[in-house]
């Protein structure tokens, strides 16, 4: 009863609880929050308290003193630390309801990876409930991504969406508001960063942090050898000498570093195409596939997939927010009883 009352003062939310970033779409207002899924925990004796969440916490990654730990509570698209995820969600939900004087109790739609297990889905649902949600709906990420990209999910036509997130890459063929075939590989932006880190260690004998690897990827990362050669100056700790050293990396080196995770994604896309029913395969061959998620921002990743599959490849508009926007649209459709879009527990 009290929750319903608090619900009067809350807005419906769609949350893209991603490994790298958490985005919140508020019904009627659009994307209102886009922050890294990072929480800094302060440990004093046996007491653990949240020191910072989101952007503030991400700045602390790799730079924390002994009593503070900056952690990413999501791993591979699912919850790795239940309590911290709950606290992070609570923080974000309060942040988007800043103006209200009652504790918010919104209806929440959360996106889940399509290959996540029942236990993982339940954990996400309970975590959102623990963070104060009045009602929790789940939707599979590729479905939300397809809606967000504006694909005709409700029509009897095959649409293929490849959502390259921080922890996972979700590939799905969608028709008639349902997922016909889905494939999920635990390769995403994080794996790209790891690949760059290990490449630098192997070839330059230097150790670079997570944040530096991400910066390299964003600035000169590329998935296809065409195009101009870009360079970046990087500083890392030389393992042999033990002192910081500066060196220059170019985009071809990064392309080399990213080959393994990129090939995993290509293999998964090809596998999905092989598994698709012939009618839908024909639709996809005609229209192509749509890339969403932060991974779609990697330079020339569309060219790589186009070359490898021989299909037209489109990068969705504003690919980072596709899932959250799609979730928001699905939330609006809940009132129209479009429940078939939602995922079961």
């Amino acid at each position, binding site marked *: 009863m009290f929750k319903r009352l608090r619900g009067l*003062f809350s807005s419906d939310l769609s949350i893209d609880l991603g490994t790298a970033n958490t985005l919140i779409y508020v019904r009627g207002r659009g994307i209102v929050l886009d922050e890294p899924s990072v929480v800094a925990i302060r440990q004093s004796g046996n007491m653990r308290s949240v020191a910072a969440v989101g952007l503030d916490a991400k700045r602390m990654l790799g730079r924390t003193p002994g009593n503070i730990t900056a952690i990413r509570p999501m791993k591979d698209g699912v919850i790795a630390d239940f309590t911290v995820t709950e606290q992070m969600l609570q923080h974000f939900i309060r942040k988007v309801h800043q103006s209200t004087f009652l504790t918010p109790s919104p209806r929440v739609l959360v996106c889940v990876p399509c290959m996540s297990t029942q236990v993982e889905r339940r954990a996400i649902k309970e975590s959102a409930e623990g963070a104060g949600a009045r009602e929790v709906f789940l939707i599979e990420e590729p479905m939300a991504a397809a*809606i967000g990209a*504006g694909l005709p999910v409700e029509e009897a036509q095959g649409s293929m969406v490849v959502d390259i997130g921080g922890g996972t890459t979700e590939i799905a063929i969608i028709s008639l508001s349902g997922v016909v075939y889905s494939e999920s590989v635990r390769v995403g932006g994080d794996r790209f960063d790891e690949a760059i880190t290990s490449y630098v260690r192997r070839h330059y004998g230097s150790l670079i942090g997570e944040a530096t690897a991400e910066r390299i990827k964003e600035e000169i990362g590329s998935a296809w050898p065409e195009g101009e050669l870009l360079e970046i100056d990087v500083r890392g700790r030389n393992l042999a000498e033990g002192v910081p050293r500066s060196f220059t990396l170019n985009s071809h080196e990064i392309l080399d570093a990213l080959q393994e995770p990129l090939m995993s994604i290509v293999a998964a896309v090809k596998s999905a195409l092989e598994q698709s029913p012939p009618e839908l395969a024909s639709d996809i061959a005609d229209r192509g596939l749509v890339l969403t998620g932060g991974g779609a921002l990697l330079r020339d990743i569309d060219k790589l997939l186009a070359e490898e599959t021989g299909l037209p490849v489109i*990068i969705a*508009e504003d690919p980072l927010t596709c899932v959250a926007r799609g979730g928001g649209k699905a939330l609006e459709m809940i009132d129209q009883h479009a429940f078939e879009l939602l995922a079961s527990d």
Partner: protein
Amino acid sequence: MTERHDTPIQDTLHMPGTLLKAERERQGLSVDTVARKLNLKPSLVDDFERNQFDKVQIAAYRRGYLRSYARLLHMDEAIIVDAHDRQFGREDASTPRAAPIQTIKPRSGRPGRLGRIVFRLFTLLVIAVLAGLTLVWWQSRDNTPDVTDDGVDTTALPASESITQIPTPIEIPDTTAQVSPTPEQQDTAPTTEPATPATEETAPSTPEVADSATPDTSSAPVATDADTAVPTLAMSFAQDSWVRITDSSGKNVISGLQTAGTTAQAEGTPPFRLTIGNASHVTLRLNGEQVNLAPHTRSNNVAKFTLNQ
């Protein structure tokens, strides 16, 4: 979505297909090369360059192809997309078309915000009023008068009255006998038990004072005799009065209309249940002590109470 043959030349120059075609020709690329690189059919690329987009019905794909084409030619995607939007608008850009979606208009500006605040304040006000009413009701419920089984409203009586009817006959005689012995009581009341705190309040009052002023103390000496002898009720009637007195066994000791100027006496085992009509003209004595009927008399001049309970 249809070809616009009648479009002025100036407008055609700013159409996405025209812009793309001009750039492609400037770079010396053929339609086939572009189509191969984009994995699109050459006829589709040709249609795009002639600003014919009706083969691609879905806006998301249409805009996606245009952006891919622009990227291939190293053009600014935004210019091509803007040109497309000018032609087709953004309405169909990214909404699933099958079902109409109920959307809430973004609340911008002050009035919407103000309205929301007013709505919230109003809701809180309603809740506060409801809570207040509930509290008032709850308190009034606690103060609801309790009615005894004989119909006498005990809360209407003075506090001392309701208290003095409760003491047991054993305790009171002891205290009265000890603290203020009177000649009448000395032969009847045994001096045994020490005084209890509850009865100390009644002790200082003498029987004379009790008779005239305080009815509570007058009932105390009456109760003293009840322990030792059979209680006797004596009534004298100044006017006609209907009386019914029953003792503890339920037997009527006096019943019926008593005429003016008569007296009546009765004995029985207490407690007595009395119903006395025209009570203001009746004098009641229990074991010789007058009982004040006024506190028991209701507005219709009928006294109904239990004596020596």
